[in-house]
């Protein structure tokens, strides 16, 4: 688990660099809430606290949630989210190893459904801001009531994925849309660097044999195949495959979220199917669903199919037909 944290570092740093200190506050609030909540739950359940805290699984969950949240969020959003992840999605299901759904994604989905307004407000990448927002200013935004702040509208915008979807719904073509400022060359200003940082971290994990390649590769392949087909058929209204791969949570999801072993399929064949399904499902949600980003919901949906995938992909036992 320590390696997972290390591999997330480049992503964290790039996020902060591209989107400002709001990300830092998310991380701090999520991590501290997670550690306290985990210890509290372990105590309530009469478990030995030390070995369970030191396995870092709660910290990883919290960090993943922090990175998935909007880049500026009122303090209670990461706080409530982390509680949902640790207390409900993890411990009420029986604790480490027993939760059928990815805790970070459960929290993300609950927040998305309950607080859609807060969950879709993203700070503009720093390159598009007239002047940077400092640490103190961010703190003020995070801890005072965010929505009433007068400057908030000037520094936030929808994410490229969101924007793309909204405008496509207004029957604009991808070519027209991409002239907007937030769409820089490929996947949206800031986003592509973040995605590449996650990709680098993911490769590190595969190299270190912390995760196997099966899930990330098949997930990205699923997304790539679906978006390529659409792009080839109707390029004017379909974002390019590269846009899909490098925007939103695709890379974070592929390397760090879908690879959570507890909620993933366990057999090798099963993992490839699992990854492909998440990739396809993300594309479907991104394109036709009600939310701009599909990874979280796709992961949760495909989590449900895991017992079935596992059952039908059992390897042939030695000496059996």
């Amino acid at each position, binding site marked *: 688990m320590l390696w997972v944290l290390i591999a997330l570092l480049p992503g964290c740093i790039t996020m902060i660099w591209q989107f400002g200190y709001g990300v830092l506050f998310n991380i701090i609030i999520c991590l501290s809430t997670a550690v306290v909540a985990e210890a509290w739950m372990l105590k309530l359940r009469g478990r030995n606290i030390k070995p369970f805290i030191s396995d870092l699984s709660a910290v990883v969950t919290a960090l993943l949630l922090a990175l998935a949240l909007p880049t500026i969020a009122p303090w209670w959003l990461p706080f409530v989210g982390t509680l949902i992840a640790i207390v409900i999605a993890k411990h009420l299901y029986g604790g480490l190893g027993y939760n059928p759904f990815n805790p970070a994604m459960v929290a993300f989905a609950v927040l998305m459904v309950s607080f859609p307004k807060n969950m879709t407000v993203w700070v503009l990448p720093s390159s598009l801001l007239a002047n940077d927002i400092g640490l103190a200013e961010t703190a003020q935004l995070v801890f005072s009531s965010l929505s009433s702040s007068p400057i908030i509208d000037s520094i936030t915008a929808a994410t490229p994925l969101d924007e793309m979807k909204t405008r496509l719904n207004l029957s604009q073509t991808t070519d027209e849309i991409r002239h907007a400022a937030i769409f820089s060359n490929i996947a949206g200003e800031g986003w592509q660097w973040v995605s590449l940082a996650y990709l680098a971290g993911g490769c590190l994990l595969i190299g270190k044999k912390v995760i196997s390649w099966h899930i990330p590769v098949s997930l990205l392949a699923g997304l790539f195949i679906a978006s390529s087909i659409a792009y080839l058929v109707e390029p004017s209204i379909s974002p390019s495959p590269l846009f899909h791969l490098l925007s939103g949570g695709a890379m974070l999801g592929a390397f760090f979220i879908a690879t959570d*072993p*507890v909620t993933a399929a366990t057999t*090798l064949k099963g993992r490839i199917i699992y990854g492909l399904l998440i990739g396809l499902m993300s594309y479907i949600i991104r394109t036709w669903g009600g939310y701009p980003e599909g990874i979280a919901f796709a992961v949760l949906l495909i989590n449900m199919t895991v017992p079935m995938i596992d059952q039908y992909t059992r390897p042939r036992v*030695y000496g*059996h037909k």
Partner: protein
Amino acid sequence: MKLWRFNGGLPSLAEHKNESVHLPIETAPVPAQLIYPLLQHIGNPAVPLVKVGDKVLRGQKIADAQGLISSPIHAGSSGTVSNIGEHLIPHPSGFSAPSITITTDGEDQQLEHTPCADFRQLSAIELVAIIREAGLVGLGGAAFPTAIKLDQQHKTKPIETLILNGAECEPYISCDDRLLKERAISVIKGVEVLLHMLACKQAILAIEDNAPDTFSSVQAAIDANGNPQIKVVKIPTIYPTGSEKQLIKTLTGKEVASGEIPADIGVVSINVGTVYAVQQAVIEGKPLTSRIVTITGEGVNTPHNLEVRVGSRINTLIEVCNGYTNKAERLIMGGPMMGFALLNDEIPVVKATNCILVASKNEAVTDKQAMPCIRCGACASACPVSLLPQQLYWHSRADQAEKAAKLNLLDCIECGCCDVVCPSHIPLVQHFRHAKSALKADKHQKHLADIARERFEAREQRLALEKAERAEKSRKKKAALKARAAKKEIEAAASRAKEKQQATSNDES
């Protein structure tokens, strides 16, 4: 030669061969006592042929096989039978079992044995009988009576390949390696005997590629022997490649179907130590009374490869190794992966004992706290049988041995690969052993229940029969009574009539 790869396994398991592999075989002195558990093979226990006070010689049969799957036992030295009764035996659960104890007289007198000039004069049936009489069992650890493996009488399929298992894949153990280095000529002679018995055309002796010296010594012995049917191959060092089914897959690409034996696919596989014992039994006429045992680990002062009389107490071997070090923590019979812990060192070496590992704290299996399973699948990737240990564990733990059995729990070879790779340090094999014995107990219970039910049904039937018989009898009796009553009535009526007649005649007169 083309080789195949079985699933999973541990290619980089620490081998720990360097502790003992360079040590030549030495002969352990005859101990003051030799203890022979009557059951030290798979099958029925042997029955004693001696009584307390009897004098015995080395090589004398002291207990005979009972039934087909069984094996006789021979005295390892001359002396007097001093006890026949319970003694601690090497068993994971620390059982005692009936054993014969011989107090040796130090003279080590042998029974005459007659070498065989030309084994080719003997038929397969005669050779099987010799091997059975010599008390041979699988010396690689399984202790299955060798004669049964070699008996082709009832088998329909011809044996195409004879595999000689020299792949000592378990860490620490070096007894087979030393045997092949020092006595390869005898082993190859044994192979010839087996080829002759099985009417088989090719023999493959497999050695792991981490033992090149051993390979050359075997190659030299084959060259000297000149038999073109025998060859030696290097196979990749991947634990557990020395396990019978995995070795067969590696060498032939074939799999032994679940529940069947190698002979069903035309293969017989025999451990090289057993092959040596075959040579000793057939050519030299000597029954199995000794074997090579590796004594190793950080817990003994000087590790050894010892030729030991079967029946020697472990403590007598530790003495040869200059005693325990202060690191000695746990006594293990067999290797660290598939061996088991012993209660104490009073326990005797049996035919299946290939290694005594006196493990230090860091050699013994880790005592790290088991954490919940995180479903990482590492265990499944490592399983040489392609099982899903994580799911087996799930069911075994929930006392659903039946469900685990559906996932082929019984195919688990207890190799321990899954234990080693589990990041949560779950003692998986322990759970599997437990679930297996639960299954066995279930089966036994079912068997008992079946017997009870049969008995009950038989009794019911008997009772019903008896009831019917009784009814029949009483009916007959009643009928007889009735008949008698009727007869009486008739008689009475007749006599009444007579009386009447008489009375009337009297009146008349």
